[in-house]
């Protein structure tokens, strides 16, 4: 399936939850927020929601420092 992550096209095979997607993309699972098709997804739901074809995902980091 073809999805878009942070504006970049990605190809995925098989069933993948949002949580597993982070591992596949080599992204940290802490200090981030995820938006799926313009809706924020709560952290507790990340393992239960599977990524579907044409999904648009945005990942924003929780930044310290200033």
């Amino acid at each position, binding site marked *: 399936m073809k999805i878009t992550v*942070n*504006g970049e096209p990605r190809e995925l095979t098989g069933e993948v939850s949002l949580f597993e997607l982070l591992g596949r993309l080599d992204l940290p699972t*802490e*200090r981030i*927020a*995820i*938006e799926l098709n*313009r*809706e*924020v997804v*709560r*952290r507790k739901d990340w393992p239960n929601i599977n990524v579907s074809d044409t999904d648009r995902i*945005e990942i*924003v*980091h*929780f*930044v*310290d*420092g*200033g």
Partner: protein
Amino acid sequence: MTNGRYSRQILFREIGAEGQRRLADSRVLVVGAGALGSAHAETLARAGVGFLRVVDRDFVEFSNLQRQTLYSESDALERLPKAVAAKNRLAAINSDIATEAVVADINHTNVESLLADVDLAVDGTDNFQIRYLLNDAAVKLGKPWVYGAAVSSYGTTMTVIPGETPCLRCIFEEIPAAGSAPTCDTAGVIQAIIASVSAVQTTESMKLLIGKTDALHGSLMQIDIWRNDWRKIRLGGPNEDCECCAKRKFEFLEARDREIFTALCGRDAVQIRPPNADSIDLPALAERLRPLGEVKSNAYLVRFAADGYEITVFADARAIIKGTDDPSIARGVYSRFIGS
């Protein structure tokens, strides 16, 4: 407002004369006067926000000057507390407005009183602990606050209006472990991302102050100024399970034990807050330390160098011990030279 100082801002239709009057009647807490806090305070002072309270626990050093735009070399040479140097500079920029410098560590004992008589707080701190504390206090008191942080070439910001938008804990439920995120001391930072994040934060603040809430960005926004990336996550409403804004549990305000040590990450320094003292006689301390090592002092602090450590003591009895990142060593140095 008779000298045309704000004329270009008033010409901007979204603000206008009425918006300018509202800014003049507004009160803002600037939390932290480092890089972001400098940028916030300068922008809001130039814009004519009537009262700015600037709180910071640190003093100016040369390594600050690349990005902390309120400060000059003389502030670093004099080792002025940042809040004091900020107030001096803000007064020179705009004598129309009132400013207050608070040289203190923001913690659960003082955050509510610092916030109680302002319209909103704008975040210029450098650590998650204070951001969660500020979120608790802002939600408890029903005050808006504007989160913002920057490191390397990227930064994130979000505007919190208690009861209307998600609060920080709606989105980031648990405070990240200490040392888990890159900081300016480990990953560096360029001034341009500070300016960018501050630009969004201060504009959001001005919209809130003049009641133009329709123009708020309503998102968790991430900017990477080097990679030319500007992205937003739409936030929607508050999380109905949020420990802070839904259940009104303010665990960061309810810290039972007074935290004594704060390692100033990446700076090879530890801040010590003595559990039993809120003030110290600085001239007497300087006199007492003089036979033991090199002492320099100004009206706000005493700086003392001995045994490879550099100890800066503030009038509220706090000290920053430079030369170690080990709290127990720092505690020992404090006890030995300042008292237990």
